[in-house]
């Protein structure tokens, strides 16, 4: 399996440079982003993808389109307009009552028909439970290439192909994957990997409606009920402004309390590395990294974290990174903005107290 076991370097570097697209495939043009929504809310990853899609479309000199599928009515139309505000030139809309809640079969059929009819060269989806479910089915139906969980997307101007880069081997290495003689080129990207584009409500464009061609009787799977999550008390790491995270350097589960203490003073979420989660010090919802959550906070404080690639890919998008580690050669000092070489168990309490005082001072001054 190529994505898991990349070809050894001795083999010729296939995929680079020269291949000629079939004439049939040259007709495929434009960049599409699938706009995912649930319970009346668009998943923010869709807007992040429009930001990235805008860059790809501009590089290729083609149109950027959103694709909205859902029940007829006001919200789906509004989602189309929001797609335009977030960078799309136009938006396709499949509105049908059978699309009221996400189900694999009707969404696969609708998106497949739409792709075959309008022929985009690139199709991007969020790497979410919905996006991954749909992308795998659509790519198989279209028999085209799909690259999961990309961290970087670019255009190879030699052949106008999409170069999709993703971590491999548990995040120890990166690989760039190309889709040769198949269109569209499909990719999924996890939430918070790409930056959120600015919203511009003065933007406008066409909303192009397309029929679904499927009735409820033809759909085998029924949604009996939808139970929304109790979000209260659940960690919301991907969208936290400040995260304090701890790693194995904290030595003992009791010491992790120091991370919680600092987080409370900062109004921050608590994050953790994979070893700490595997040792059951904290809930797996709090794992940051390749096999956990990707985060983009304004401030990330890493205590007792060495900075393994598996962790780094999940948090290097933070605006400011502070690292505390007793090993001056720890990898985390290569990409943190501020570092303290020292014992996290003594630095964390001092930092907690200092932040408490300094925030109180700033509050008085403000």
């Amino acid at each position, binding site marked *: *399996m*190529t994505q*898991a076991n990349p070809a050894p370097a001795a083999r010729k*570097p*296939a*995929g680079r440079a020269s291949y000629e697209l079939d004439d049939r495939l040259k007709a495929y043009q434009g960049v599409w982003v699938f706009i*995912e929504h*649930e*319970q009346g809310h668009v*998943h923010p990853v869709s807007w992040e993808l429009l930001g990235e899609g805008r860059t790809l479309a501009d590089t290729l000199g083609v149109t950027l389109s959103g694709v909205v599928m859902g029940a007829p009515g006001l919200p789906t139309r509004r989602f189309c307009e929001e797609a335009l505000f977030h960078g799309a030139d136009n938006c396709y809309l499949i509105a049908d009552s059978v699309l009221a809640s*996400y189900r*694999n*079969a009707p969404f696969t059929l609708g998106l497949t028909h739409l792709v075959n009819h309008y022929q985009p060269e690139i199709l991007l989806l969020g790497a979410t*439970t919905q996006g*991954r479910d749909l992308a*795998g*089915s659509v*790519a*198989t*139906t279209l028999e085209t*290439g*799909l*690259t*999961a969980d990309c961290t970087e997307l670019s255009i190879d101007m030699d052949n106008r192909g999409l170069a999709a880069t993703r*971590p*491999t*081997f*548990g995040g120890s*290495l*990166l*690989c*760039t994957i*190309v889709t040769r003689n198949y269109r569209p080129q499909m990719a999924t990207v996890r939430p918070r990997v790409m930056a959120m584009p600015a919203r511009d409500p003065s933007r406008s464009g066409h909303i192009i409606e397309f029929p679904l061609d499927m009735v409820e009787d033809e759909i085998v799977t*029924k949604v*009996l*009920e*939808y*139970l*929304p999550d109790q979000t209260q008390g659940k960690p919301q790491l991907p969208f936290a*402004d400040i995260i304090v995270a701890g790693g194995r350097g904290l030595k003992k589960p009791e010491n992790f309390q120091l991370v919680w203490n600092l987080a409370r003073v900062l109004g921050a979420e608590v994050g953790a590395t*994979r070893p700490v989660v595997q040792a059951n010090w904290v809930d797996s919802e709090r794992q940051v990294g*390749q*096999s956990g959550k990707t985060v983009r906070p*304004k401030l990330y404080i890493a205590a007792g974290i060495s900075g393994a690639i598996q962790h*780094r890919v999940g948090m290097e998008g933070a605006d*400011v990174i502070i690292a505390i580690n007793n090993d001056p050669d720890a990898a985390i000092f290569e*990409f943190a*903005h*501020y*570092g*303290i*070489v*020292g014992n996290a168990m003594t630095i964390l309490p*001092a930092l907690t*107290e*200092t*932040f408490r005082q300094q925030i109180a001072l*700033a*509050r008085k001054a*403000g």
Partner: protein
Amino acid sequence: MHIVVCVKQVPDSAQIRVHPVTNTIMRQGVPAIVNPYDLFSLEAALQLKDRHGGRVTVISMGPPQAEAALKKCIAYGADEAILVTDRAFAGADTLATSFALASAIRQIEKDLRVDLVFTGKQTIDGDTAQVGPGIARRLGMQLLTYVSQIDTLDLDAGNIRVRRRAEGGVQLLETRLPCLITMLEGTSDMRFATMENMFRAARYQTRIWDKDAAGIEDTGKIGLKGSPTLVSKVFAPKPLSRRADIIDTESHEPRDLALTLVGKLFTQHPELRDSLAQQDA
């Protein structure tokens, strides 16, 4: 009832190291394991068998040594194991893999009708989560991904009710058999292998299928030829050019270090200071 569980042998990624000079994967000594996500699906299949009876067949596509992963599954309580292995599969991406596995499952069906197929939600080496949906599509089965619980299975009526994890909640879904399920992690603990099953696994003759035995005629659909995607390069992440501003004080006292750090942070990033000051005390 007949359940097919697809498993993959993977290197234990927690133990993979990259050579610091050549930037290549150091495979030596890295143990091969059954993909941990597959075990949640195997356990779910075995629980259904406990309740409803029937047969659990495990299947894997991979090199000859992947037989070890299948024997492990026999030790856990699977009834039959089939290894689909052929040099012609080399270089397969997820599309070519789902083609080969779907074809093999069709062959299995000739022996005994398949009611349910399970795959892991993803592997720990590829992390794509694409092979399960691909197999379902090719077999024309209903697809239920990220299932956290199987509520009811009614074999007479031929339907199943599950809870599926969505982004902001849980869907209660009902569908007809046959269908393909990928289980969410943490749904159950893998049972221990019994002594009896371990002995059985040691003696068990895994069925080895090449592409012909798996019913594959079109070699354009498998291996490198059947793979739209291609790895164009593998590389180590670039070290970032920045190097942390290491806070140092004469005293090296934690309190002085903390004060210097927070002072710098608030001076260089006043927006952080302001937003912290505006939070509720």
